[in-house]
């Protein structure tokens, strides 16, 4: 298992969590989500986000509506649903659980 593979696996697992987190703060459109994910180096290519957004929507975690923009065609703005918010809370809990246990493990090694 190479480092690269490890990174991919981690990113893959966390992508859904990160997207939900970004969407939960405010109504955002796809490019903003991509921008934030890119800044935090979660994703490398933009194309990976669209299938995920569509899947999240299928599970009714997020919703979208069209808004006119000052430049160019109307944009799709995504926001989180109540159901999605609940899901996100569960994800946060499990994330901090995993995080703390991994941290514990690392401390033991030191």
């Amino acid at each position: 298992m190479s480092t690269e593979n490890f990174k991919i696996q981690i990113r893959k697992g966390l992508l859904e969590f990160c997207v939900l987190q970004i969407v939960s703060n405010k109504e955002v459109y796809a490019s903003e989500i991509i921008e934030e994910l890119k800044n935090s180096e979660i994703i490398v290519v933009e194309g990976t986000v669209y299938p995920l957004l569509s899947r999240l929507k299928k599970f009714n975690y997020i919703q979208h509506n069209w808004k006119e923009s000052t430049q160019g065609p109307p944009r799709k703005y995504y926001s989180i649903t109540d159901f999605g918010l609940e899901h996100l809370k569960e994800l946060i809990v499990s994330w901090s659980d995993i995080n703390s246990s991994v941290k514990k493990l690392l401390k033991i090694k030191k």
Partner: protein
Amino acid sequence: MKKTFTISLGHSIFNVEEDAYEILKMYLDSIKNYFQKMENDSEIISDFELRIAENFSSKVSSNKSCIDLKDVKQVIEIMGSLDDFKEIYNDVEYEQEEEKKTDNKLYRDSSNRIIAGVCSGIAEYFKIDPIIVRVLFFIAVPLNLIVYIIFWIGIPSKDFDPDLRKILYRDKENGIIGGVAKGLSNYLKIDANIIRVVFTISLFFGGAGLLFYLLLWFFTKEAKTIGEKMNMSGFNVNLSNIEDFIKKKTKNLNSPENTITKVFLFPFRLLAPLINALLKIGIFVLKTIFFMFSSIFIVFISVLLLIFSTISFKDISPEQDPEFYGSFELFNAIPDYFAIFSVIFLLLTIIISVIISFYVLFKKKSNSYFFLFLIFLWIAFLILIMISLPNIILNMQDLNLLPNWINGNYSFIWKWNDGIMLNKNN
């Protein structure tokens, strides 16, 4: 100087240079192919297009009004290739692959079909080329027609992944007459001219090559989409292959033919427009003949329907028209239920033949489930009529109502195991 295409992408209009357009189209096609297989969701693709459009608009300015190859390459880099998506979504892919392995059932192949995909489905099942099954089916046509229809009705259809196998297509773009030789050359990886020479030589030995050529022409599809074109030459559709493919294609265009090839191909190039024109005329003539026959048939059935429905529901007494007494009584002897069956049967015949002739003449497709339903109804009424017919004929014979030429020479006999039989009187 380059040609440009005007495209509409994500509700915006862009001018794209030709080479850039080809790459962009292949990229979008490959993405479409991939995500349709995965999520069956057209929304992902429209999201992609919207985002690409955003990127393009930032690249266009007042002193650069069209999108070139560099822009497209940059955008593809930003958006990512199929391999990138596969990394993230490989779990979904695994599921699909497993399904493919365990799912070894017979389906009709809706992704590569000429009529209903029966032959192609069988070929997929046995992992052979569809053309073999098609030709076999064609050779034994009267029997296999029934088999074909049974398979059509009985087997569900399924979209097979066209990337996974090599299919024989006609390559009309690079071909000379119908693209059969070029298609074969792509398939067998032999130079097209060798195949052309073989075809030409075989013309002088009883014309077997001509027959073979025509058979292949009828039983193969023309490669039209980029995916099919790549498939034809044994490429898998993914991004790196797309670029290779384009490079190869442009290189091929530039390489000049040598003199021998030119001399050899000259008569064919000369003949090609003639043959194509003859074919078009032939198809037109066939369609016209079909139109005439089908309309005569439909009119005939309609007249039959009209006569039958007006006469058979009336009770006509002999006093009204003694001259036709015999024939009217014949109609009176037809029970009402049989008249109803016949009228519905004739109506269905008319509707079905109208639908079929529309399909053949104008390629207008009707709802296939509706059509199947009609066919089932038609068969059901045919069976009803067949069941009730013997009794009615026997009844008519008892009443001495059958026309004289039958009554004098023949008699009907009902046998429980053979049905109705016509016996010649001695």
